[in-house]
Each structure stands twice: as C-alpha cells, then as structure tokens.
C-alpha cells in the first residue's frame, strides 16, 4: 500500500496531520510519501492507494491551489480510477469551482474538480460537533469552519447527519463521496477518532489490518459515541 500525505507541513492543522500517520501505523508495511509544498507530488507520476490532505490557513489554500492546478486533470483521473483521497477540514474547498471570501471580497479560482462554490466569512466562524452515519458506521467528529459549500447537490453525501451540523445549519447530510474520494468538513484526527472507518479505508485499499492502538482507540471512540448520542449533551 502507498500512502501520500500531501503538504503535511502546512495542511495538517488541528491534528489533521495524524490521519496519514495513523494509516501508516495501522499498516506499517505501507510506503509513506510525505510530500512537501515545494516538491512534486508523488501522484503526479505514480499511483498512491491513499492520498490525505488536511486543514490549512486561508492563505495556504491559495498556494496549494496554484501548486495543484497543473495537476487538476491528473487528480480527476485518479478520482475516476478509484484512488482513495481523504480531504478533511477546509482541504475540500480547493477542489471547488471558486472560493469567495465575503469578508475581503476576494475570489479565488479553485481546481474546478467539483462544481460547488465556497463562501468564506472570516468574521462568521462556526464550530461544533457532528454525529453521522456512513455505510452503517457511526462517525464522530468536529467542525470549525469559516467557509460553507454551496451548490453541491447531485453528489453522494459522505454522512447522513444524526446530530449536529451538516453542510449547513439544518442540513441532513455532510460532505461528499465520489468513488473513493472522501471530502468532509470534519477536521482533525478523524481516523484515530474513528478506528472502524480507518479499517474501512484500509480495506478499500485492498489491505487487511486493524486500526493501530485498537484497544485504546475503540475505548476512546465508544466513550465519545456515548456522549454524542446522549440527549443531555448539548450540540450547538
């Protein structure tokens, strides 16, 4: 198995950087490609099994888009071919048609792989928790976002929301999945927080293996799930 962690030095805020690392520790035999922003991504000429990219600052989004723009068609080809791509936090924004910053009025052209627009309000941040289901798995996670996606209808959602925030207030779905391209606004260590989902991704890559530190990860997951399903626990 080949894992590519894209630009982890700038796209790994809030613990997102641990997702690729956790996959690697779950499958120690996997080859890890930690690509820096100054380097050519491995996927440009090779075929990784899993690509991870995580949260970044708004100025970094612009740099990452410019870095990946010449590789947009290659990314589309990998998505169509079933490569697993996990984009967490605001990493999903870069795949959109455009990012509109309504605070300073700037518009950044995205990679255009998806038809949606992202509207960013730097003075209107949302943070909260999300409980959703994906293929029968309960997924727990956190959100902290300045940007919201508009015009993403037509795609298969990642999560069916059970509690908390989806793509917008009141939305019953969150994120999207195209083949094995998982785009979610859940940020941080989504894989260590969800060991069953980690194992699902590993199986999608054709590997067998259980999540690293499974006992500890499952104990933490079960505790959080109990809290998230407790009606007394506040969500907004």
């Amino acid at each position: 198995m080949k894992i590519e962690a894209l630009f982890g030095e700038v796209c790994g805020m809030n613990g997102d950087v641990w997702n690729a690392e956790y996959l690697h520790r779950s499958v120690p035999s996997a080859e890890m490609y930690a690509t820096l922003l100054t380097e050519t991504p491995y996927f440009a000429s090779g075929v990784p099994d899993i690509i991870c990219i995580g949260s970044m600052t708004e100025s970094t989004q612009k740099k990452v888009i410019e870095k990946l723009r010449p590789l947009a068609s290659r990314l589309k080809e990998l998505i169509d071919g079933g490569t697993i791509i996990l984009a967490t936090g605001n990493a999903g924004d870069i795949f959109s048609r455009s990012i509109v910053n309504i605070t300073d009025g700037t518009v950044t052209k995205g990679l255009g792989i998806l038809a949606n627009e992202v509207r960013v309000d730097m003075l209107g941040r949302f943070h909260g928790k999300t409980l959703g289901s994906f293929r029968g798995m309960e997924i727990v996670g956190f959100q902290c976002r300045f940007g919201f996606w508009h015009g993403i209808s037509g795609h298969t959602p990642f999560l069916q929301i059970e509690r908390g925030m989806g793509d917008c207030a009141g939305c019953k779905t969150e994120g999207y999945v195209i083949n094995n391209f998982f785009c979610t606004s859940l940020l941080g260590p989504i894989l260590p927080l969800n060991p069953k989902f980690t194992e699902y991704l590993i199986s999608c890559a054709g590997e067998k293996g259980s999540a690293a530190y499974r006992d500890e990860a499952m104990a933490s997951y079960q505790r959080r799930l109990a809290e998230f399903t407790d009606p007394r626990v506040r969500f907004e």
Partner: protein
Amino acid sequence: METIKRTRFYFAMAAGKAVALLLRALGRRATHLPGAVALKICGELFSFLHKPEILICVTGTNGKTTTANLITSMLRGAGLGVTNNSTGSNTAGGIASALLENSTLTGKHKNKYAVIEVDERSSLKFYPFMSPDHLLCTNIMPDSILRNAHPEFISYIINSSVHEKTKVFLNADDIICANLVPQCGNRTYFGVSADAPSSCGSTTVKNMVYCPKCGAPMAAEYLRFEHIGRVRCTSCEFGSPEPDFCVTDINKQKGCFTVESGGERHIMPIVNDNIVNIYNSCAAISLLASLGFSFENIGGMLGKSHIVKDRYEQITAGDLRVTMILAKGLNAVAVGSVFRYIASLPGDKKCLLLLIDDREYNERDSEITCWLYDLDYTPLDNPGISKAIFAGKRCLDHQLRVAMSGLDRSKFIYTAKVDCSSDLIDISQYKDVYVLYSAYFIDEAMREKERLKRRGEKVI
C-alpha cells in the same frame, strides 16, 4: 441623534454601576456582567468613555494575564493609580466592567494609568473605539480552535483594529508576533538571547514554514519551541528583528537574569524561571523602561512581584513538595510548555496529576479534542517523571495519545473522576508532586492540593 446616543450612554453607565453594586451586595464578583449590560444598552460605550491618560493594552495567545499583572503590580508598587481587569474577563464585557468601575457617571476616568488585558478576538470591539497608547503582544501561537482558529486569523483581527499611532511592543523571537501591525511605525522588540537555555534543537519553523514575503522555506538559527527563536527566510531578507531589550545570562541559582538594552546591561530578578515567564518579564521591563522608569526602579519593583497564586504555587507538607501550575486548557502550546518545564527541572521521582480537560465543555457538552493531537506528550517520557495521572472525562483520549506518542504506558494512570484523584498517588514514593490544572479546574485543583497537604503532614 447625538443627544439620544449620549443619553443612552449615561443610562448604560448608571445601569452598569447598579449591576456592579448589586453583585457586590450579593457577595459576587462584578467581573463581566456590569460591562456586558452597559454594552448591551450602549453599543458605543467605549467611544463615549474618557480614555485613561495612559492606556496600556496587553494581548497575545499566552502570557498576557501574567504580563498584565506584572505591569500592574509594578506600577502600583510605584504608588500609581492603575485601572485593570485582572479580576475579570479580558473580553469586551470584562474590559467595560473595569473601565466603568473606575469612571465617574459621566465617563471620566479616575486613574492616570490603565493596564487592560485584551483577548485577541476582542480587538475589533475595543481598539477602534479606544485606541491604546501602548500595545504589548506577548506572542501569537496556535490556540484552541474554538477560541482562535489559527494564528493567521488572529493576526488579521489585530492588524485590522490597531491604529497606526499606537506604540507597540512585540516579541522579537516570535516571527508572527514581530510582524504584527505593520501600519505601526513605533515598534519596540523584546527577546531572549540564543545562549539562554532551553533551545529545543528543532529546525522546522512551525506555523511559518514558508516565507510570507517570497514563499521560500524558512530556516531557524535556533528554536525554543514552535516558532519561538531566531528564524530567517532562505531566500529574501525576511527574518527575526533584533530585540531592543534582550535577556541574557539567565542564572537560576542566583535568581537573576541580565537585560541588555541600548548597549547597557541591567541585572533583574527572576519572578519565575519557566522560560515563558522570562519572556513575560522582559516584555514588562521593555514597556516600563519606555514609560521612563529607570532600570533600577524596575528591578526593585520586579523583585516584589510574583505570579498570582492561582497560576503558580508551591507548598511543602512533610517531605512532600506540591507544585501547582496553571496549564491553559484547549491550548497545546501552553500545556506542552509546562510539560517541558517540569521535565527540565532537576530531581527524580516526580509525579504529575493532570487536570487539563475543559470542565465546562465536558459537563454539558463534549470537548473538541483536536488540540490533544497538537500537544507534544513526549516530555512526559522524561525518566525523572515516575508517574502521571490523567484525571477527567477525556482520560481515554489521553490514553490513546500516550500510546500514539510511544511512551512507557506503565507509568500512566487514567481516571474519569477528578475529585479525590490525588488519592491515587502513593505519596511515600514521590518527593515532588506537580498538579497541572486548566482554568476550568482551579477549585478542584486547590481541593486536591489540600488533600495532598493533609496526607503529607500525616506521614510526618
């Protein structure tokens, strides 16, 4: 229109003062509510209040409370009247409470000086309406995503709100802080020299991996933690500025350090030897020196200052020494710096009791724990630390992080119960117990301190 606004202001002042009186009559601290009520009635309260003659604001991710308290205590030690918000909140409501308490009904300020600690996010609500004469920023670090999102966002907020005529005091060793408020020409930098201890040896400039001017990689001459140290761009001239006030020769045994400024060297007393508090002391020194106080006076005043008890306290009970240290919850950098500090202290058989969850979020909510994945647990692997107990609802998250950090799992204990968690410590086995607690667990931490004290005295 102006008359209506002014009438509303007077009403807000009267209402705020009445709320403060009522709270005091009920035996409660009037820290936030009076100001919040006044701001609710008059959104332009800060515009109508008279500005103190010398308004000093202290902001930054970590250390602003300590630094503001040091400056306040030194000014008061010099016999000066000072308004400050040390007993209240540092958000708009708390700032308004402090200002209206020290103002007449017509808004005239009673003290010459005001030292106001300002939460970074409150910058936009305060500075544009009451511009500080002096603004000191301790540092700009990653903080809780709930509070501050990321350093770039906080820089944007501060840069958008500070007037160009404000005199700013910035941390030269924090490349993000040093480049704040480019519109302000009157800039003073403070820092700690490279030969001072506690360089971490890392070469990756966290939080500013690439130059914001040209995009080339940044390089470090040395780093203490995160991006604190001296750094430069590998391609252009962008880099750390030279400090105007620079700490050298930290002598923990003698309890003093040297501040170099303008070619002169001045010996200053150490208030607390954690490197972050050396930075805080230097920040306060640079500001007071710029206000015209002599270094001799500053040294004398600093010698009488201390870190407030609910932030740092050390007691002995029999053979046991108990050290209480506040470690800001939800903040990986702050907690990590306390981990490193304890690991760096001499001695073995140290035991840690860690009460670092966010109680409020875990009582009625469930804490967002992303910060635990930015927290460096590896200092806990130090052989001098024999045992560490994580107490609180998030103990299983810590258990996973300890496993992921590759630490010796046998020396850790996890319990969801905070009350009586110190009973898990076999005090006959340890010389030093350190209790680290978040601001949400001060009362509980103090109860555990008393339990440890009673047990330590009983052994004797």
